[in-house]
């Protein structure tokens, strides 16, 4: 992993740090999701979830994000075998998948606002927008991160020597996907 730098566990320090970060994020999203669950059904006025949640549309977003995890994993595999051509393709694909997801969120949010659901309408609005908004922010950061890697790759500065960096990017991206799996179930499907 590193030239001449002894490590006690024989593991890359950045990878350890990142898994610790993901553990920490479990508490962040856990608190947000807990609040959503605790306030579910307690809104005094509508719109209520069944009034505005669009399952077909959100299912498409979910598929999109799941597929983007596939593109990410393929991107990592490409970088690991130093196939930078396909690495760029899959990285772009992942970023596009993220952008499509974000586009969907923007459309969904503005649709909800038009239907009368805002942050301050009721508890559903507050908890829904803060939870999914935080997740969306994480996706946006991820897209920025992916595009940065893509630019580095286009500049010829990304090679298999940077596989660990791409692996960690992947960990972030998959985690963001996994949080969406939880949100999709607890917010959209279990109403």
């Amino acid at each position, binding site marked *: 992993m590193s030239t001449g730098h*002894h490590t*006690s566990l024989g593991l890359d320090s950045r990878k*350890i740090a990142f898994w*610790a970060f993901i553990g920490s994020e479990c508490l962040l999203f856990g*608190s947000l999701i807990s609040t959503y669950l605790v306030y579910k059904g307690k809104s005094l006025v509508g719109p209520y979830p069944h009034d505005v949640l669009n399952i077909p549309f959100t299912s498409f977003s979910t598929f999109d994000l799941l597929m983007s995890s596939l593109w990410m994993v393929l991107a990592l595999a490409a970088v690991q075998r130093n196939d930078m051509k396909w690495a760029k393709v899959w990285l772009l694909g992942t970023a596009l998948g993220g952008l499509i997801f974000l586009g969907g969120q923007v459309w969904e949010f503005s649709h909800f606002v038009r239907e009368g659901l805002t942050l301050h309408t009721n508890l559903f609005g507050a908890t829904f927008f*803060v939870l999914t908004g935080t997740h969306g922010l994480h996706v946006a950061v991820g897209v920025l991160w992916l595009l940065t890697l893509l630019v580095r790759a286009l500049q010829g500065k990304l090679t298999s020597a940077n596989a660990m960096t791409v692996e960690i990017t992947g960990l972030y991206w998959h985690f963001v996907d996994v949080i969406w799996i939880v949100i999709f179930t607890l917010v959209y499907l279990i109403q």
Partner: protein
Amino acid sequence: MSERTGWKSWLTTVDHKRIGLLYFWTAFGFFLVGGLEALLIRTQLARPENHLISAQTYNQLFTMHGTTMVFLALMPLSVALFNYIVPLQIGARDVAFPRLNAFSYWVFLLGGLFMNLSWFVGPLFHAGTLSVAPNGGWFGYANLTERQYSPGPNIDFWLLGLQILGVASLAGGFNFIVTILNLRAPGMKMMRLPVFSWMTLVTSFLIITAFPVITVALAFLMFDRFFGTHFYLTSAGGDPVLWQHLFWIFGHPEVYILILPAMGVVSEVLPTFSRKPLFGYTVVVYSGVLIGFLGWGVWSHHMFSVGLGPIADSVFSATTMLIAVPTGVKIFNWIGTLWGGQIRFTTAMLFSLGFIAMFIIGGLSGVSHASPPADLQQTDTYYVVAHIHYVLFGGTVLGLFSGMYYWWPKMTGRKLSEPLGQVHFWLTLVGMNLAFFPMHLIGLLGMPRRIYTYPAELGVGNLNLVSTVGAFLIAVALLVFIFNLWRTRTRGEIAGNDPWGGATLEWSIPSPPPVHNFDAIPTVHGRMPLWSEPEKMKQHGPVGHMHVPPGSIWPFVAACGLPLLASSLLTHRLWLVFVGGAVLLVGIYRWAFEPFEV
């Protein structure tokens, strides 16, 4: 070779020793600020129906005293020791992520300044000076902290300041976890790790799991205050008790974050000055880990008067009593360490012994809180104030002083004066008991917390006066300490590598250590390498050029983005979001892409 002198070298330092010193001086400064706030509080309470300080100012004083002491003094003082000592104890050249370490410090400094700026900037918010500092208590209960009841910027300074500080703590937490897990010297298995480093590891895990929860709690408050949500407002079906849950889910692990480092110090100091290994090392380590875990299951014992119901009360009562067990176990092991040892009553040792005695007292009042019916009488009275100050002052502060006296020679090359240290210790011990013991009685006699004055009929005037005298005695003791620090700069006894006859790796290198710490990273075969194989631990001079990472300005730049972002909300200026965001992003990108080799 990086330039090692001048203010620029400090601004760009990524050396854990320098960062440790920066943390120390900044935290100590904030400790004095918090102490001043305490003295003002105690002066106001010295006699009944005093009107030296108005109720409005008083609310700011006790809020800032608590917030400053917890977040700006005690935690960073512990971090100062983590920074300086842990890499030395584990045989590493630095922490795992030196620039992240620097970033943590700058964010801490800026966050502390941001929050304390509130004392002075009242006029910018169309109020007087000394009127917009946070005033909702260090625990900020909703719905007092909501815009309706706290219309001014006070609570905004509080919640935004804490969010900034949270970033610093989290970054440090990740850094120390990786450092301790991955950068240990060859042969240093986990069960050979010095207990201080073990406690640093447990504390770091507590930090990275607890802080996200308060981040969410504060974010909800921010949304309520700025964007019209109703997370804690009943008018829309929300529940103020949600704040209490989220705050204490963070808050209880937080008190273990505050005490475990000091316990780590005691576990180092006692063996050294008893010339005996720590009794029951394995048990002490496991107890620390267990305290970390169990600390997550007790949070609602802060909420026994809220009406959670008998089942919840019983569950949390049981878990709270349970957590006394591993704590007690540690105390017995410390006593076991002293038993039959060759005791040297150095100042460091006195403070550690003082820790044990005072923490037992604090623990006893804590156990009495564990019973909900008893707690219903105690909660929100001065009885609780007694408890927290026995564990936090008698525990954490005494423990940290012990660490300071112990490791001062390692950090500066000079021992602090022992005679002055003894004066400091005894004045502190007498002072703190005068200040805090009467509070047990004051509380049970019916004086609530957080009131700016009290009627004479309550009959607690004399006890309050005694308490105030004690507080000022603590202040005098601190002056002695500060004089000691000052005098030691030029007149302190020069310390060699190992002035105390310590057992662990930090004592094998010069005082202060060279920038690269160890000439050759030693291989260890036990817990006490300097006692079991002293010859093998000798350093023989650097071999060739010792690479030391260059400094970097980007951690500082990135850190500056955070208070700018916070200010955008505080001042309702959208453009500050873009400026702050840009500064943060530029800092991060330059940091990510600059050439840097550990």
